[in-house]
């Protein structure tokens, strides 16, 4: 068993080196395929994070009229909290809103002066409000409908301008991301198909090149598995080399991109390289296994056809 295995490996390596140019072409196609797939994985992660980043900033604010008491606002808050679409409601009193505003503009003396003047006139500068966050971006429309139809709708005004701005931004992001993802899928599928065709043809060429040896092997009683295995292992070597090269190339690419990404997602905990490190075995191991599986199936068909097995 071990002798046969070692011999299969020896024949596979011989095939690999004897057709080195064909091997290089095949490996290049596999590298392009795997790089496109990994790029797509990275891009998906970036797109999802960008959408999440924007989504997190979205909220709807209810501004209560001056005459609405704090108790009434609390009652309304309790009532709205029952909605299945709402993740969080925060009450912001007029005083808190004013303090927040002052904190935010503490260096702008003109604004502070204007605020002080209003305070001296006992005018209510800011209204009390409820800041509402939905469980999901898609749920804001339902929340707005519920609020507009609510029995308390006379007591507040809805400020949905932020929601509209961010919705339009996330829609644009989703749209661009979907288009790039579609492009990525198409490119990956094209590369996968090219890789499969290359593998299929490589096996056919290898089978043709080795036809005399294969004929003699059959004649002297070598088993079909022994005849097929070196050709299949040759393809598995291609995949192994391609995955190793892709790991090196892709990590170099990530290192080069990382400063740009950190700047782009400033303040947001995005670590693309960390993601690939954590899922290294799943991503690259999975790619190696999948490509090998495709290759084995494709090469088995090519050999079967040629050898009439």
């Amino acid at each position, binding site marked *: 068993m071990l002798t046969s295995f070692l011999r299969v490996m020896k024949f596979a390596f011989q095939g690999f080196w004897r057709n080195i140019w064909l091997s290089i072409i095949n490996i290049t196609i596999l590298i392009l395929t795997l790089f496109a797939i990994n790029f797509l994985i990275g891009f998906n992660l970036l797109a999802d994070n960008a959408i999440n980043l924007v989504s997190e900033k979205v909220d709807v604010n209810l501004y209560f009229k001056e005459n609405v008491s704090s108790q009434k606002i609390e009652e309304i808050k309790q009532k709205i909290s029952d909605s299945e679409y709402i993740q969080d409601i925060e009450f912001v009193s007029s005083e808190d809103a004013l303090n927040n505003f002052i904190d935010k503009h503490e260096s702008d003396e003109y604004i502070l002066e204007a605020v002080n003047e209003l305070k001296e006139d006992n005018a209510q500068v800011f209204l009390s409000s409820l800041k509402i966050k939905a469980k999901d971006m898609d749920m804001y429309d339902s929340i707005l409908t519920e609020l507009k139809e609510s029995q308390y709708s006379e007591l507040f005004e809805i400020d949905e301008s932020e929601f509209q701005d961010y919705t339009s931004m996330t829609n644009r992001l989703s749209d661009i991301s979907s288009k790039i993802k579609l492009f990525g899928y198409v490119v990956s599928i094209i590369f996968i198909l090219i890789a499969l065709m290359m593998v299929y043809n490589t096996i056919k060429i290898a089978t043709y090149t080795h036809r005399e*040896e294969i004929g003699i092997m059959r004649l*002297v*009683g070598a088993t079909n598995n022994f005849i097929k295995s070196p050709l299949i292992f040759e393809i598995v070597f291609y995949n192994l080399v391609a995955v190793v090269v892709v790991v090196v190339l892709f990590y170099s690419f990530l290192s080069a991109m990382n400063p740009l990404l950190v700047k782009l997602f400033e303040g947001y905990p995005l670590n693309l390289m960390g993601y690939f490190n954590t899922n290294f075995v799943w991503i690259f191991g999975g790619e190696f296994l999948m490509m090998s599986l495709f290759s084995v199936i494709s090469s088995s068909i090519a050999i079967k056809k040629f050898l009439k097995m």
Partner: protein
Amino acid sequence: MIEITNLSKFYNPNVWALNKVSLNIKPGEFVSIVGQSGTGKTTLVKMLIADELPTDGRIVIGGWDVTSIKDYDIPYLRRQIGVVFQDYKLLQKKSVYENVSFALESCGTQKDRIHKIVPQILKIVGLQGKADRYPYQLSGGEQQRTAIARSLVHQPKLLIADEPTGNLDSINSREIVDLLLRINNLNTTVILVSHDRDIINSLGKRVVTMDDGKIISDQVVGRYIL
């Protein structure tokens, strides 16, 4: 040893390679199968090694029904049957030793056993001094002896030689036939497929004559009658 019963190979109802061929060969026999080109001799050889399936009929070799053999059993059948052809089928980039050992390597034989068997076989075929030569450095007869050596590595009970002297001059042909006779004397059944009249007539062995896919003559001590 070999029982062939009503063996037929039809490509369509009017075109056949073999038509109801029946033949029994005893263990240790030396049988020559003769006939003009296209009379079905090579088709019969292919069926004996399960390289082609008959349309009808049965072949049993040493209790093994070759006509209904499972795919995974074919390699094990072929290890029981040595085959040599007119074109030698040697690997040009391998030496005599490597060509012979390749047959054992392909079947998973251990290295030390290969080192033991190959020199013995090369001695039997008279190539012990030419183990390192490549096929292009050998005469036709020596190349055919290499092919015979390769066919003997599994110590087969049956050796089939399909036109082994077809590419050889009379002297080399005689050497090859003498080698086949020696192998037969070691109790290996030999089937010689040939249309070399002189060789067949000189053997004084059983001769089966084929014509148009049928056996037209089967003589215990035969001559080339066509």
